[in-house]
């Protein structure tokens, strides 16, 4: 307390500039007067009395100094003094200050920008209370190599009752639902969740309530919760929305609550996070299949909140015990060969998913840019000390302490770095809207990216740390000037301090090496991207548009107008017929969401049961299974290799047939003829009301592989089925021809709604767009790294230019003497260029070593190019050396044109 009070008073005195000097002077004067009086009384002569009194009091200057130190805070006072001086120095050389601040603004601004993305995605993936308690519960069947097979309802109940978790909820992965009854049918994304879902996340509604966690309705409870965005957009933020009936896929639900603004669902894609409706369901009654223990659906996710204080590892141990006892209890459902296990994953990991690597690489790249900027500024600072060495020497000669000098120089560099940081942050803040447009939309949490106080704190922290680290070395080198020689040289024609020029060369070599690393990374990414872009996708996206619609899936199947494939076929044939009449349309086909090449984030995979090989669903390998109309393969230009494709005669009542791709043929029937083989696919679609065994399906054709799943992956097994035999609620209409993207969507909507007015039509895009979107994260990271690499190259060029200029300047006397003695000007040019080349070679050597390490670390992000790619390495090294030589050439020319007479005279 006492200390605080004293400190506070001193700070106040410092801030208000109040001194106690006058009071002390008065008190000391009085003190002397008292003492002199007393001395006089004791019989001293007046002069002697005065002298003795002064002796007894002590040196008034020392007392004043102590008194002042007590009154105020000398450390801060010195700091303020240094700061004032630093600002003056900064203003005295505006060119230098501008370059240094701009360089730092670039480095810190770029780093902060990437940090703000990482802050929103990797650091705060879950916007819920106590996010560390949230886990995803995943079933694996390692015995048959199947992961994440989904959890059955009885298993979920066991988990919920196990006492390991506060609560556990089932949620769908998100799907679409048609909202009808308003002007235009809307397709909205919804999630079906168990009623305790929101209590697991720990979020309450802003209006109304969330579902009652103890609600045990087996099917849909017919309650719906809206997102804040939907409530504002479609219902005008109606405060009386509660209780309102909404018609979703022809079923009536009642609104019970509205989630708060900023609430985002969990999930790894922005589709999942942008869910706008939540429906409460027990997952056990109609329209869900009966809750059998081994009826697992991959589209179901179980998330749970751990008991407070329980670690994931401990929970996992409890869970393993539970799994063992369940296996004993139900031996038939858990055959030993499948080796059923349940695994806990922190929910945060599942949310960020696949962009982590790209983001970390970007952060690494931008970190290198920051490092290069710092090195550059440190280099500039060193260069300036050579100009200021005389000033420093004079100060030292006058008795300035070394630590005091370092502190002052450090203050100056800190000021530069912090100003740079603030400038970088300011630019970022004002350019944020523009910059956000560069971020690909597929990035999770895109909307959460913001330039907030935390980001500002990061920028300042980086500036201060960088300022201290990179300001200290120049300050230290400067403070150990050799006094006598510096003063004697009078700052002219000096050959410079050996330590300083060595330090500068080390800095430049570092800079060159770092930029080489960045350039190699950029080069490899560029080549990967280029290869991906140039890769033959195996299908022809030219002039093809995809437009989506969505058939309702009401809870009571008997009310579904498109209950059977036959019923649906009537609709689809009519849509196709009408689409072909549209202007410009040459071909039309239909497929489900999975059939949209590169356009689906989460393909549905079904267990593939080959006749005579697998007997149980649990053991079957999973295979992607698009549903398409017969015209699909021709429209997309996917050539048939063997057998035949679907015909109009393959309908619900004829034997089920399927077409596979070559990858599936090679994987599942190696060295055999797959034609005529029979398989069964466990069906997994919304609205499925029975778990009856599906019919045997005969393979009738093999088509060539196409990169429909990922451009980077040549052959992923696919099994196609005909939409006329197996209906799909998701319908994608493919059109090829001379289409006008702006008019085609309303035209298709008109035609579709002429058949059924309740169907929404949305999301029209060309396949070329889909293709380029699928590369968006790659393109983003490639462009960013390339941008950083160019920046790095520029900075490195500036660095080497500065260093060589400095060397030439320091050696101008020597050069002049050489010239005077008859050296050829060409020799001088060579001499300087050799210097530059030496630095470049050292930098390139170090850089290649570093780049080899980095390129292997990022091997997962490369496609079609080896991490040791010789062309990239050689090309980058040549470019870097070229830039280094070009940057040395200007000072070399200056050295060559030196006039020996004037130079020697001026010294």
């Amino acid at each position: 307390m006492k200390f605080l009070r004293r400190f506070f008073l001193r700070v106040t005195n410092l801030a208000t500039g109040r001194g106690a000097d006058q009071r002390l002077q008065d008190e000391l004067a009085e003190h002397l007067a008292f003492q002199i009086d007393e001395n006089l009384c004791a019989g001293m002569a007046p002069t002697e009395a005065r002298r003795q009194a002064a002796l007894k009091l002590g040196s008034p200057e020392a007392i004043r100094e102590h008194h002042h130190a007590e009154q105020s805070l000398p450390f801060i006072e010195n700091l303020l003094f240094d700061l004032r001086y630093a600002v003056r120095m900064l203003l005295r050389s505006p060119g230098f200050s501008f370059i240094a601040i701009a360089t730092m603004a670039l480095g810190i601004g770029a780093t902060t920008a990437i940090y703000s993305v990482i802050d929103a995605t990797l650091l705060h993936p879950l916007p819920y209370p106590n996010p560390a308690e949230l886990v995803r519960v995943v079933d694996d069947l390692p015995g048959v190599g199947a992961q994440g097979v989904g959890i059955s309802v009885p298993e979920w109940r066991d988990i919920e009752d196990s006492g390991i978790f506060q609560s556990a909820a089932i949620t769908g992965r998100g799907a679409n639902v048609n909202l009808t009854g308003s002007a235009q049918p809307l397709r909205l994304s919804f999630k079906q969740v168990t009623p305790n879902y929101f209590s697991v996340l720990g979020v309450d509604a802003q209006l109304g309530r969330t579902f009652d966690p103890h609600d045990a309705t087996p099917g849909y409870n017919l309650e719906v919760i809206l997102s804040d965005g939907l409530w504002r957009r479609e219902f005008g933020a109606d405060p009386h929305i509660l209780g309102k009936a909404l018609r979703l896929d022809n079923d009536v639900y009642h609104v019970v609550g509205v989630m708060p603004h900023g609430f985002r669902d969990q999930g790894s894609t922005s589709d999942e996070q942008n869910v706008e409706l939540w429906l409460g369901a027990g997952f056990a009654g109609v329209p869900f299949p009966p809750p059998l223990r081994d009826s697992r659906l991959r589209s179901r996710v179980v998330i749970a909140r751990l008991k407070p204080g329980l670690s994931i590892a401990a929970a996992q141990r409890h869970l393993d015990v539970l799994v063992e006892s369940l296996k004993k209890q139900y031996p038939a459902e858990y055959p030993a060969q499948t080796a059923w296990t349940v695994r806990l994953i922190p929910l945060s990991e599942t949310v960020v998913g696949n962009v982590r690597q790209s983001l970390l690489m970007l952060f690494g790249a931008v970190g290198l840019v920051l490092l290069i900027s710092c090195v550059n500024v440190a280099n500039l600072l060193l260069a300036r000390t050579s100009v200021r060495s005389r000033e420093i020497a004079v100060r030292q000669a006058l008795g300035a302490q070394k630590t005091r000098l370092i502190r002052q120089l450090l203050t100056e560099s800190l000021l530069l770095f912090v100003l740079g940081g603030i400038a970088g942050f300011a630019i970022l803040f004002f350019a944020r809207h523009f910059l956000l447009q560069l971020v690909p939309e597929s990035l999770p949490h895109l909307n959460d990216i913001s330039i907030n106080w935390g980001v500002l704190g990061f920028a300042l922290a980086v500036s201060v740390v960088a300022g201290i680290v990179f300001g200290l070395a120049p300050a230290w080198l400067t403070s150990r000037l050799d006094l006598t020689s510096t003063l004697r040289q009078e700052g002219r024609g000096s050959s410079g301090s050996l330590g300083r020029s060595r330090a500068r060369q080390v800095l430049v070599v570092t800079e060159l090496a770092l930029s080489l690393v960045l350039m190699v990374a950029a080069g490899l990414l560029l080549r990967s991207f280029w290869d991906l872009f140039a890769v033959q996708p195996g299908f022809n996206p030219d002039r093809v548009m995809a437009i989506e619609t969505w058939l309702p899936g009401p809870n009571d199947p008997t009310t579904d107008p498109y209950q059977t494939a036959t019923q649906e076929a009537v609709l689809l044939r009519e849509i196709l017929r009408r689409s072909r009449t549209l202007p410009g349309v040459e071909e039309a086909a239909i497929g489900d969401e999975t059939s949209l090449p590169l356009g689906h984030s989460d393909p549905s995979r079904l267990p593939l049961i080959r006749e005579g090989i697998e007997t149980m669903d649990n053991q079957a390998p999973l295979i992607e299974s698009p549903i398409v109309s017969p015209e699909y393969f021709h429209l997309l230009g996917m050539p048939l290799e063997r057998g035949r494709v679907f015909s109009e005669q393959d309908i619900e009542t004829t034997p089920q047939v399927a077409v596979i791709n070559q990858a599936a043929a090679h994987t599942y029937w190696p060295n055999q003829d797959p034609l005529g083989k029979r398989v069964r696919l466990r069906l997994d679609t919304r609205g499925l009301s029975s778990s009856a065994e599906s019919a045997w399906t005969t393979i009738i054709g093999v088509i060539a592989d196409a990169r429909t799943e990922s451009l980077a992956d040549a052959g992923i097994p696919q099994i196609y089925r005909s939409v006329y035999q197996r209906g799909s609620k998701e319908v994608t209409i493919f059109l090829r021809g001379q289409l006008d993207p702006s008019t085609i969507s309303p035209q298709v909507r008109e035609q579709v709604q002429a058949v059924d007015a309740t169907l929404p039509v949305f999301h029209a895009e060309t396949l070329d767009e889909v293709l380029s979107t699928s590369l968006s994260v790659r393109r983003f990271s490639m462009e960013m790294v390339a941008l950083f690499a160019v920046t790095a190259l520029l900075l490195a060029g500036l660095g080497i230019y500065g260093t060589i200029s400095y060397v030439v300047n320091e050696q101008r006397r020597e050069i002049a003497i050489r010239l005077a003695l008859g050296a050829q000007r060409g020799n001088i040019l060579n001499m300087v260029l050799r210097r530059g080349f030496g630095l470049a070679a050292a930098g390139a050597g170090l850089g290649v070593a570093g780049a080899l390490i980095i390129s292997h670390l990022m091997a997962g992000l490369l496609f079609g190019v080896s991490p040791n790619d010789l062309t990239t390495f050689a090309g980058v090294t040549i470019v870097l050396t070229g830039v280094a030589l070009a940057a040395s050439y200007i000072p070399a020319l200056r050295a060559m044109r030196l006039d020996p007479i004037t130079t020697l005279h001026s010294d």
Partner: protein
Amino acid sequence: MKETPDVLQGTLALMVLKTLDILGPQHGYGIARRVEQISGDLLAVNQGTLYPLLLKLEHEGSIASEWGASENNRRARFYRLTAAGRKQLQAETREWEQTAAIIARFFKVKAEDLP
């Protein structure tokens, strides 16, 4: 740079407080005289070091000061003990007495006293 070791600096503060406690409000010279009288040589020279100390004690709230007139009608700054200062003095006195007693026992000890 330090004129007085830490121990003395600490004791000086205690002496100032005690002086003010016994004699009531005093000006700086008065305090210096008393301390000199009682302590002998400690404050015989460099009486000026007293003033930064007075400022520190005032900042800490142990003493307060105001201008006033001295016995021979000079203007002088008078220092007095505050309630907090009195409490501090009592606490520190107890501490000193304890410390002194312990040290005194150590000085008295002879080899044959120890078992």
